[in-house]
Structures are given as structure tokens and as C-alpha cells.
């Protein structure tokens, strides 16, 4: 195995080229995103959740809920109708209401952060991750167990679930936990939430994705946007926002690593929307979910204000490109979740769309990171990727599939 000091070129043994370490940061963020997407695709294809399943789940929850909200009745309406136009209309209404709820909750988060209720937010975050890991994790594990007929008794299952959830909460909640466990549990939370979202009806999912990316764009770039306010507040106080953020730090810290505080936007909103769509769940769970989403938001900024004064050509600037530096990129969990929802929904159609959407999302992520390096301010991570993903999904479904199937079935390839 080549290490950094020896090159494969026999002439230049002892010298290392820039190609050895360039782009490490990006890969350290691309790998967990890809892993999350892969797990969601595997879950979706093995435990195929059709619309029948989502309708049965929703009806199950509807019957047990104490106070059905307007969303739940809307959901019932959604699942009852069959015609496409009805579906589109209800999808748009759901997506819009989601965005509204998320906006309100994000403003609430800004308010709480302004009044320095940080502890409250952190505890809320812990409780919401506990809910996600235990309830969602339990539900999906039950699905898997029943599908693959794994022999396990309820007591073992309960003990395992309890242990894993509690450790997960500590892993994301406590600052001094080993980073690999933190990263692993964050990916797990992303996978569970994304899988839950793929159970939505098809039009609702797409409408939701597009609405969330538009909201993302507005909330981060507009002067009155809640996320922008949050970022500016955090920057002025030089504090960390309490959020579920994936930190792409290397597992073994190398000597001379500086922890650059690049905070990438997460989709707080996304989480909130998730909550709204699961309106069938009990109110408290809804709030928790909303809290989780709020937590997820973390704008894409450079935390050290003094770096803005540096000029091009300094060490700081090079690191700013995000290439070959030893800093840590942070990506919000909401981004993970929404990317995986898109790919999971593509997996429900065909694998060709999965590959096309995966490449589109990676391209979008790359573009976002590039823009980040150029503009050096809070940027939304959702819009570019989701828009590219949706475009590629449509193009693949309409154009590519016919072409490829035509060629392959005649065994013509190029």
C-alpha cells in the first residue's frame, strides 16, 4: 500500500505529489452521503413499501391518535383519491403546508436561540434523536425482521433497541464521544428518517422535495430568511448552533490538523416537513420531529470572522477551497435525508434512475462546495442537488430508458 511519502513512479520515489491528498475533504463528505443513499436504496428495494403499506400505516396511526390534526384528515383524503390531478393537488397542498410549518418552527428556533435557551434546544435535540432511533428504528427493524424472517424474541429485541437508541443519543448529544460512532449514528438517523419519508405517496414526495429546496434557497439567501438570521446570530456571538450536524473529521486525527469551522447548511426545514407529513403521529412526536429538523439546520459559513480579511494566496485561502486541507466540513443531517429520499424514491421506479439521480446529486454537491469556496458565505446545500436530481430523474425516465432498453435488448452496445 503506498503511503504518502513514496510515489508509484520509480523516478520520483520520496517525493509526494499533490494528487495524493487533494480532495480529501470532499471525499470524506461524499462517502457518508453515498453510504446513506446506498442503505436507503437497499432498504427500499428489499422491504418494498408500496402505497398500500403507507396507507395501512397511516390508517393504523390515525386510529390510535388522540387528536387528529388537519394534516391527518388531509392525509386520509390523499390516500383515498386515485386520480392523478387529485394527487397533484393534494401533494401541492401538503408540500405547501409543510413549508409553512417549517418556516414557523425555524423562526421559533431563531427566537429561542436569540434568548439563549441553548440548553433547552440541546435537550430537545437529544429527546428527538431518541425518538427517531427508538420508534423509527424499531418500526423499520420490525419490518426487516418480518420480511427476512429473522428469529428473535421480543425481550432481546427490546434490550437491543433500548441499548442502541441510548448509545445513539449519547453519540450525537455529547461532545466528547468518539467521532466514528457519532458519524455512524448520524448516518443511521439519516437512513431511518429518509426511509420513513419514502413511504409518502409519489407526487407528495416530489412536491415536498422541490418545495423544500425552494424554501432552502429563500431561507438562507434572503435577508429576512430565518436561517440567515440564525447564522448571523451565531457568528456574532461566535457560538455553535445546537444541531444535528455531520462533521467530516478524519477518524484518526493527523498531526497538524486544524479544525476549520465550516458549517454547512442542514435542512432544518426538511426535518420539520417530515414531521408535518407524518401528521398522523401523536402531537408530541410531531413536535419532537420538528425539533429535530430545527436542530439540523446549520448554515454554511466560515466561523472565524478574521479569515474574511485575509487575501488570496494565503494558507487560509487554499484551505478555503476545501481541497487538500486538514479542516472539517460539516454537512447538516437534513441534506443527507433529502438526498436519500430522492434516491429512495428513484429506487422505487427502477435502478437506472437511481444511478442517474446519484450522479446528479453528487454533481450538485460538488457545485455547492465550489460555490462555497468562491462565495464564502452561508449557502443552501439542497437546491442545486435536488433540482439536478429531479431533472435527471425525469430525463432518465422519459428519454434514457427507452433508448437503453432498445439497444440492450438487441445486444447493441457502444
Amino acid at each position, binding site marked *: *500500500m*503506498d503511503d504518502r511519502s513514496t*510515489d*508509484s*513512479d*520509480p*523516478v*520520483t520515489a520520496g*517525493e*509526494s*505529489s*499533490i*494528487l*495524493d*491528498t*487533494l*480532495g*480529501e475533504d*470532499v*471525499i470524506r463528505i*461524499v462517502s457518508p452521503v453515498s453510504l446513506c443513499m446506498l442503505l436507503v436504496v437497499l432498504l427500499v428495494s428489499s422491504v418494498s413499501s408500496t402505497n398500500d403499506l403507507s396507507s395501512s400505516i397511516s390508517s393504523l396511526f390515525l386510529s390510535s391518535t388522540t387528536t387528529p390534526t388537519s394534516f391527518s384528515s388531509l392525509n386520509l383524503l390523499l390516500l383515498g383519491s386515485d386520480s392523478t390531478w387529485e394527487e397533484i393537488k393534494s401533494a401541492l397542498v401538503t408540500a405547501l403546508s409543510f413549508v409553512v410549518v417549517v418556516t414557523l418552527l425555524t423562526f421559533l428556533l431563531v427566537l429561542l436561540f436569540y434568548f439563549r435557551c441553548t440548553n433547552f434546544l440541546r435537550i430537545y435535540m437529544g429527546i428527538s434523536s431518541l425518538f427517531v432511533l427508538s420508534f423509527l428504528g424499531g418500526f423499520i427493524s420490525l419490518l426487516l425482521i418480518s420480511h427476512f424472517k429473522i428469529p428473535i424474541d421480543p425481550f432481546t429485541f427490546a434490550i437491543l433497541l433500548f441499548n442502541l437508541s441510548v448509545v445513539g443519543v449519547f453519540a450525537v448529544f455529547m461532545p466528547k464521544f468518539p467521532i466514528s460512532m457519532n458519524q455512524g449514528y448520524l448516518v443511521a438517523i439519516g437512513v431511518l428518517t429518509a426511509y420513513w419519508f419514502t413511504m409518502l405517496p409519489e407526487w407528495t414526495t416530489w412536491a415536498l422535495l422541490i418545495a423544500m429546496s425552494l424554501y432552502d434557497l429563500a431561507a438562507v439567501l434572503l435577508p429576512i430568511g430565518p436561517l440567515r438570521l440564525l447564522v448571523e446570530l451565531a457568528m456574532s456571538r461566535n457560538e455553535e448552533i445546537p444541531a444535528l450536524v455531520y462533521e467530516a473529521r478524519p477518524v484518526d486525527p493527523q498531526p497538524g490538523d486544524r479544525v476549520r469551522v465550516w458549517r454547512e447548511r442542514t435542512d432544518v426545514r426538511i426535518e420539520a416537513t417530515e414531521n408535518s407529513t407524518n401528521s398522523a403521529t401523536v402531537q408530541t412526536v410531531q413536535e419532537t420531529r420538528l425539533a429535530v429538523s430545527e436542530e439540523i439546520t446549520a448554515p454554511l459559513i466560515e466561523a472565524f470572522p478574521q479569515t474574511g480579511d485575509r487575501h488570496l*494566496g494565503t494558507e487560509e485561502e*487554499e484551505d478555503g477551497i476545501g*481541497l*487538500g486541507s486538514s479542516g472539517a466540513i460539516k454537512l447538516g443531517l437534513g441534506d443527507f435525508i433529502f438526498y436519500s429520499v430522492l434516491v429512495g424514491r428513484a429506487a422505487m421506479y*427502477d*435502478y*437506472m434512475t437511481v*444511478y*442517474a439521480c446519484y*450522479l*446528479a446529486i*453528487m*454533481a450538485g454537491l*460538488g457545485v455547492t462546495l465550489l460555490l462555497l469556496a468562491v462565495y464564502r458565505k452561508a449557502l443552501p446545500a439542497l437546491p442545486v442537488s435536488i433540482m439536478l436530481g429531479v431533472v*435527471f430523474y425525469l*430525463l*432518465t425516465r*422519459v*428519454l*434514457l430508458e*427507452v*433508448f*437503453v*432498453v*432498445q*439497444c*440492450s*435488448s*438487441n*445486444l*447493441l*452496445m*457502444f
Partner: protein
Amino acid sequence: MTVAAGVGYVLIALGPALSLFASVIAKKPFLILTLLSSTLFWLISLIILAGAWRAFLPVKSTELWPYSILILTSVGFQEGIRIGFWRLFKKMEDMLNAFADRVSKPRLFLTDKMQLALAGGLGHGLAHAVFFCLSLLTPAFGPATFYVDKCPSIPFFLISAIIALGFVIIHTFSMVIAFNGYTEGKRKDQIFVPFAHLIAALITLINLVPGGCNIGLPLLCIMAGTTLYYNWQLVWRRLTEHQTTRSSD
């Protein structure tokens, strides 16, 4: 034909690609990024082709000429894109060299450039295998198999896996050959790549004839082997030349 068969087909198509990835590309993060972007490029070129041909599909006739036009236009378009890809590669090389000067590290070595070309080619090959073979392999994980009318002796999945394997090799190494040819300005290398691609694509036309796949598949593998051999000779020559020029400094 069960999960084992499905996984087997995947490995037939992607085995060499995966080993190339694990041994060369996974070690350098930038190469992984190059691979992803070249896969995206190939996908975009395929989508453009599909868009251009959408109006004429599905081709109902069993004659040769519509398919040959399809092949010719597709290959021509992709080879044209390769020149564009090379221009982008040159720009990236300049940017990387400028960056290397800024951080006072050595500029790109010859092996670096070749590795970049290899990653680019592997991206193309991977895209081909994924979209032409893997995306159609989903039924292979189930309980049955499928035979095409024109080729009743080999299951469809196996044929597409072997063709994908051949094309992975051809795409990967023709990128290295092409980049070397454009850099050095050697006509022979520049002509070889489109030529090889075209011949390989035309070989698959043989599959249209009933029973043709028995001839087409071995020919394709021979073509892949030729590309591999040509690439080997080229790289060997360049590396020894490079070594002698450096040791004579």
C-alpha cells in the same frame, strides 16, 4: 436466477473495474472525484443521444441499417466529446499545476497524468457497465433467467455482462491512449481510439443476426484485449522514455 447469480453477473461486468478502483483510484481522493465527474459526463452524453434518437425509437424493423446509423452517430458523438473532455483535462492540469506551485509542491508527474486519464476512462467504462448492464440486471436476482430470441444459447444477462466487461476495458484504456496521443500529438494514437471504439460497437451489430452472439462476443473480447495490449505498449514506452530523460538530467 437467485442472488448468487445476480452478484456473479455484476462481478463479471465490473470485476476488473472494481480491482482497478481498489488498487489505484481509492488511494487518491482526487481520482475518485475525477471518476465521478467522468461518469457524469458519459451519462450526460448518453442522455443527449437518447434525446436525439427519441423520436425514432422504438425501431421496429429487424434490418441492419437503422441500428448501424444509431451506432455510428452514437460512437461519433462520444468520440467528439472525448476531445472536449481532453480540453477540460488540460485546463484542470493547468489549475492543478498552479495550485502545486502555490503550495510549493512538485508539479504533476507523468504517472499522475496517466492516473488521471485512467480514472477518467474508468468513469466512462463504469457508466457504460452501470447503464447498459447493471440497470437491467434486477430480474437476475429473482428466480428465473431470460434468453433473447437471437441468441438462445447464452442467458441475456451473461451476454450483457460480458459485453459490458469488454467495453469497460476498452473505455478505460482508450482514454489513457487518447490523452497520451493528444498530449504527444501522435496521429497513430489519436486515430486508434475512435477506430477501436467504432469497431467494437460495430461488432455488437453482429449480435442482431440469429446466432451471431457466438461470434460477436469472442470478437469483442479480442478487441478489448487489443486495446489493452496497445495501451500496455504505449505506457511502457512512455515510462521508459521518461525515465531515461530524467536520469540523463
